[in-house]
């Protein structure tokens, strides 16, 4: 085996060692002086052999290491153990440092006598820098995770045992790290979920699908439940082996609570809307009956007083019902506005007339000051009037008897400004904004009866804002009166208000033949009585088919038609009436408890000329009947 023998030739071996460039390989004498020097040593440390051979190997150590005797310690350990391995900073010839892996092996002869040491040094600077970068990245990530308070972020081993715990986990679940690290994740689950195997199921799902996500009840340290959203992600090493899981838990208790509050609010809102609709139906005949009673001459004073009581209280009830409906609309964001040029001076006059009973009841002096010419804005006349009625009624309500109320309308740089002021109870400064919140009674009413629901000003401001305007309150304080200012952008000069869709009839009523259709017998009969008292000829039926039959026989000028009826509903009756050939025009008026924009649109499509919402104001009803110019109001 001549070839094999040549490979172990000492000369060849020496040459191999000498030529190695990736490792510094050299020999030290027992005292640590350098005896040999290969190419790798020259490359890594920068010394030529003649520069370094004979010097002590501590030349390569940092002053700090030399000062603490580390080179000598390495030789001592290598002598004792036979081998010593170390990693640390070493110094090149040029003074620069490199991270070195060093192996020192004691060299002994056959008798065990120490001959010296071999030293192998590898330059691991790049690896060290990479590891340092990785360590810093991990440190940053750990600090980031540890600092997160809104999420519980922690690690589990492959069996589901907690191995790390951040500040968010401590905040949400209540355990300190030392209390929970080492516990199984099932301690966070309610008993029923543990029995159902959910903790293990979550880990299995994460392992199988790469992620497991769930919402459910979890337990805090003290056993208190909280609603959590949990994401479990498996962690694998480079070879694909499962190393554990990352678990992120978010406490959704507040959100769930908020959601439940919103659900409850929506249910209450729906209840209010339904209740209001249901109250409208019985209110309609009551209001109509009161109107009829008022027209009966010569009733005795006691009866008259009772009628007036019913009138006042049912009117107040009707206002509350309207408020309830508006609350429902506002909270659902469906307060509908009909946009058309509207003269605010007209709105002021309508509002003053509507509020006259309240002002009269308080014996207040009323000043109405309107700037010459119309104040035209783009908006909903009915809603704008509603704002002013609210302000005037409040003024009357919160001003002691025989007070002073003033309404002033003027122009202000492209804006219409309407002031409603009084010398009444005034408003405390802290309440000046709060009075515009829902259900806030800003001032102590002089008469609690009829104080309403506390939504009027909130609605008024919403309506003003929906028109691009503002509504502000001012008061010098308690008992110093109040001033409310409504500002709305004026329409450009070109636009003029349309003719009012329904004009209040002046002068004598022209008698009409009116067919009243309503399945609520009381409502239909009282309405017919009211119409008779106004001089009209009426016919009453209570369902859709009767209405169609009677329309042919009675040949009405006007049909007052309820919409919600069994059998043929009002929409279908209106369509069929429109399909009939007629010698004279027919006016079809919806009289219904449903007043949403969608209801009005549907009645318009079905052929109704006018859409009135119960309880109907007799004045509005009269004008709706009297209107012969083809105008419609929905």
């Amino acid at each position: 085996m001549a070839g094999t023998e040549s490979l172990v030739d000492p000369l060849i071996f020496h040459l191999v060692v000498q030529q190695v460039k990736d490792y510094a390989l050299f020999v030290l004498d027992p005292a640590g002086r350098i005896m040999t020097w290969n190419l790798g040593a020259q490359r890594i440390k920068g010394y030529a052999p003649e520069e370094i051979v004979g010097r002590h190997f501590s030349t390569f150590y940092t002053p700090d290491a030399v000062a603490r005797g580390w080179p000598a310690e390495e030789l001592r350990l290598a002598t004792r153990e036979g081998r010593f391995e170390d990693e640390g900073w070493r110094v090149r010839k040029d003074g620069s440092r490199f991270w070195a892996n060093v192996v020192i092996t004691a060299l002994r002869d056959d008798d065990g006598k120490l001959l010296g040491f071999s030293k192998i040094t590898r330059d691991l600077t790049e690896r060290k820098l990479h590891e340092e970068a990785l360590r810093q990245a991990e440190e940053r990530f750990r600090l980031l995770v540890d600092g997160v308070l809104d999420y519980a972020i922690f690690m589990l081993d492959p069996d589901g045992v907690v191995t790390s715990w951040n500040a968010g986990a401590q905040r949400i679940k209540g355990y300190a790290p030392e209390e929970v690290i080492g516990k199984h994740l099932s301690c966070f689950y309610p008993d029923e979920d543990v029995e159902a195997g959910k903790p293990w199921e979550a880990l299995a799902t994460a392992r199988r699908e790469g992620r497991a996500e769930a919402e459910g009840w979890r337990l805090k340290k003290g056993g208190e439940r909280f609603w959590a959203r949990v994401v479990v992600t498996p962690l694998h090493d480079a070879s694909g082996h499962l190393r554990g899981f990352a678990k992120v838990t978010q406490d959704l208790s507040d959100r769930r609570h908020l959601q439940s509050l919103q659900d409850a609010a929506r249910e209450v809102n729906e209840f209010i809307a339904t209740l209001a609709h249901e109250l409208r139906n019985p209110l309609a005949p009551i209001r109509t009956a009161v109107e009829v009673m008022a027209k009966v001459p010569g009733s005795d004073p006691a009866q008259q007083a009772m009628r007036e009581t019913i009138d006042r209280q049912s009117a107040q009830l009707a206002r509350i019902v309207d408020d309830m409906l508006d609350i429902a609309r506002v909270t659902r964001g469906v307060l509908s506005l009909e946009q058309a040029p509207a003269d605010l001076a007209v709105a002021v006059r309508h509002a003053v007339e509507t509020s006259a009973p309240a002002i009269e009841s308080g014996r207040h002096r009323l000043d109405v000051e309107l700037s010459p010419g119309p104040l035209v804005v783009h908006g909903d006349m009915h809603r704008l009037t509603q704002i002013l009625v609210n302000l005037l009624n409040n003024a009357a309500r919160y001003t002691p008897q025989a007070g002073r109320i003033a309404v002033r309308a003027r122009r202000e740089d492209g804006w219409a400004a309407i002031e409603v002021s009084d010398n009444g109870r005034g408003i405390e400064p802290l309440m000046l904004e709060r009075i515009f919140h829902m259900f806030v009674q800003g001032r102590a009413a002089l008469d609690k009866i009829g104080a309403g629901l506390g939504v009027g000003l909130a609605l008024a401001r919403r309506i003003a804002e929906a028109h691009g305007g503002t509504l502000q309150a001012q008061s010098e304080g308690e008992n110093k009166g109040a001033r409310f200012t409504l500002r709305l952008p004026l329409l450009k000069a070109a636009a003029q208000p349309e003719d009012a869709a329904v004009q209040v009839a002046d002068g004598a009523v022209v008698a009409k033949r009116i067919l009243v259709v309503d399945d609520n017998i009381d409502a239909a009969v009282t309405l017919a009585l009211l119409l008779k008292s106004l001089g009209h000829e009426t016919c009453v039926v209570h369902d859709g088919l009767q209405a169609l039959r009677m329309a042919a026989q009675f040949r009405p000028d006007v049909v007052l038609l309820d919409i919600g009826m069994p059998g043929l509903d009002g929409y279908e009756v209106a369509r069929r009436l429109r399909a009939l050939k007629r010698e004279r025009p027919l006016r079809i008026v919806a009289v219904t408890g449903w007043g949403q924009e969608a209801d009005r649109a549907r009645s318009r499509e079905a052929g109704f000329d006018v859409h009135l919402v119960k309880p109907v104001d007799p004045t509005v009803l009269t004008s709706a009947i009297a209107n012969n110019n083809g105008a419609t109001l929905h």
Partner: protein
Amino acid sequence: MAPTDRFQLPLRWQFVPVERPADRSVCWKWSAYAQSGRLAMESERVFETLTECMEDAKAAGYGRD
């Protein structure tokens, strides 16, 4: 007869409760003041209700532009 001069047109309408000394009941009257502040018109009689009073004022120009 309502005035036609714009400056003299009634600008401010005042509705005032008046207590009858006899029974302390309240009746209503109206007054209209021009831009100049001068009393332009007033009701010729008193009314049982504010609404009636307003209706009478309407006949005299209240509510007309």
